[in-house]
């Protein structure tokens, strides 16, 4: 089989290629940036309107108190799991093919979390009082309600965000040093100088670096799992039919990893093209990535079926009605679309011929995420439309353009953050790629690659 990466790339070459991404991307980069900005302005407009007029303009009502905001919130949280998966989990498992791509995956984690955080705000009826949710000594002498899953959310997300930022930064230090040494003027020079914390690559620095990095990695994995389990408990802990499902936490985590991987594929393809990373983000790596995605897709499908089964064979008639309603009611098209995108479509990824066919993968990966987004929406809205109390059922309350606008804009916001990052910081980890190349070359010289602690 083809190689993940050429062993004969000179280290200097690696620096050169990667640093080039900080200088001159293709024109497409700027186009994307502009589009992103446009999308954001839409969202900002909508939010200002909603803030001043009241939540009513989002066309929710007393039956549909939650809608797209929460759905999209979960979506972005889910997205954030990819980074952890690739960098932390695979790091511990010494899957070295992750090395060229984990950096931007981590960036993704950070930025999608930031986006998710925004939705919590957008969703609140009294955004200006949001600080009530935080426990701090105040003149009212009251605390938030620690029983509420929403408060757990607040903690979980805050912790996860801060630690994943830390993880991203720490992992970048050696590369920042490289940038510092190779760029000779301008604000960037200063930036890198400060951020690289005087990295010289001495033996001692490397040792501490490895330990720290490892520690944070270990710390991050349980966080990643917990954060989405907690988000899941927003629903699992409530008594709404369709939400009150024990299998939600694993289900959510699987979904999260799923959409994360899909997103990585998408961005993989974009970066590979925009920053001319063909040498590093190679097809074999993509192939591994795709297989991983496929595996997770199947896990998700399985858990999905489990959920249906547990509802179906459970004695709760209301929940059963709810499920039937999902599959047959006004939400049916979206429900089945979700099943198709989430479970049927990924079967394509099982075929070798598609595993490296970038255009197709690009489209598919996006569709997978559409499916994932639909999944979140299908968890939220049908339960509100068709809950415990028939009198208050509401089958024809659809999100207004304000909601759609803000959801739409959030993608712009994410893209902007991400693209700017890739332009300012090396989106491929240079030192790790060098390691990778080195080990591969050792392996070539018929020496067994050294495994374990080094």
């Amino acid at each position, binding site marked *: 089989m083809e190689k993940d990466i050429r062993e004969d790339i000179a280290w200097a070459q690696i620096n050169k290629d990667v640093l080039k991404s900080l200088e001159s991307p293709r024109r497409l980069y700027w186009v994307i940036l502009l589009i992103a900005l446009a999308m954001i302005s839409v969202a900002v407009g909508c939010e200002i309107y909603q803030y001043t007029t009241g939540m009513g303009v989002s066309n929710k009502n007393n039956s549909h108190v939650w809608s797209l905001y929460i759905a999209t919130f979960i979506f972005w949280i889910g997205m954030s799991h990819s980074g952890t998966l690739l960098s932390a989990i695979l790091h511990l498992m010494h899957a070295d093919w992750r090395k060229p791509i984990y950096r931007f995956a981590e960036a993704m984690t950070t930025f999608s979390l930031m986006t998710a955080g925004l939705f919590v705000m957008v969703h609140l009826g009294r955004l200006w009082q949001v600080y009530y949710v935080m426990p701090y*000594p*105040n*003149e*009212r*002498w009251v605390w938030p309600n620690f029983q509420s899953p929403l408060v757990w959310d607040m903690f979980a997300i805050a912790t996860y965000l801060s630690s994943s930022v830390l993880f991203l930064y720490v992992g970048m230090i050696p590369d920042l040093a490289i940038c510092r040494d190779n760029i000779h003027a301008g604000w960037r020079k200063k930036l890198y100088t400060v951020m690289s914390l005087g990295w010289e690559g001495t033996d001692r620095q490397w*040792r*501490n670096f490895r*330990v*720290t990095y490892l*520690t944070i990695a270990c710390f991050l994995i349980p966080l990643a799992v917990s954060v989405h389990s907690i988000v899941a408990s927003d629903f699992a802990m409530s008594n709404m039919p369709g939400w009150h499902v024990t299998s939600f936490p694993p289900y959510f985590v699987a979904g999260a990893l799923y959409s994360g991987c899909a997103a990585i594929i998408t961005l993989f393809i974009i970066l590979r093209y925009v920053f001319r990373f063909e040498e590093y983000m190679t097809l074999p790596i993509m192939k591994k990535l795709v297989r991983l995605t496929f595996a997770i897709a199947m896990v998700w499908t399985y858990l999905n079926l489990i959920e249906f089964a547990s509802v179906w064979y459970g004695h709760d008639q209301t929940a059963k009605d709810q499920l039937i309603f999902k599959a047959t009611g006004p939400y049916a098209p979206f429900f089945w679309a979700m099943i198709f995108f989430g479970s049927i479509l990924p079967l394509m990824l099982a075929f070798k011929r598609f595993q490296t066919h970038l255009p197709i993968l690009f489209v598919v990966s996006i569709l997978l995420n559409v499916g994932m987004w639909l999944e979140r929406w299908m968890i939220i809205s049908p339960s509100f439309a068709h809950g415990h109390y028939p009198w208050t059922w509401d089958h024809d309350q659809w999100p207004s353009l304000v909601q759609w606008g803000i959801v739409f804009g959030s993608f712009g916001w994410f893209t902007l953050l991400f693209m700017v990052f890739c332009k300012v910081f090396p989106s491929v980890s240079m030192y790790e790629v060098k390691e990778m190349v080195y080990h591969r070359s050792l392996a070539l010289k018929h020496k067994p690659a050294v495994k374990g602690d080094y």
Partner: protein
Amino acid sequence: MYCFLRLSVLLVGLIVSASSYAVNAVQPLTTADDLGPKVEQPIEFPHDRHAGDAAKGGMQINCMYCHTYARRSIVAGIPPLQKCIGCHQSIESVRETPRIKKLFEYWEAKKAVPWKKVHDLPDFVRFNHERHIQRFVFAQNKPVQEACGYCHGDVKTMTVARRQKPLSMGWCVSCHQKDHPVDATSTKTTHGPNDCWQCHK
């Protein structure tokens, strides 16, 4: 690998010590005074003359002689003009002083004096004067001025009353968490109610 262990031990240690501190950190039970703004009243009413100690030339009038609603309503209230006149028409000594003149102008015009609020609580709060007066003055036989003073400060030394206490929720709670004897005689004590609808409406 050692450094790895060291680091985690350090982290755990930090967390433990921090939380143990937090658990034992005790809050002060009343918060500091905080002087409110000066309020321009239509007539500059001298509380010290009316309620102040005889030594300082005050009349030592009971707060509830004028703020008569305090013991039977949620608001302490301002006496009707009638009441001021009731006394002052027979007090010739000060009859001609500017403030009293003004007072009588209002009376002749049959216009109510537009007294301004000094202690103004937010409108989602229901503070019940009756309950506090009943509890501290009538059940516990606390001196009236002391009881009122808990929240209004030492009014008998002021001319125009001015807010002295912060009147913030925490300040209320700080007192509601104290145990007070239920009445003058008994040793049984209870603290104030702390469910939200006691004060929030």
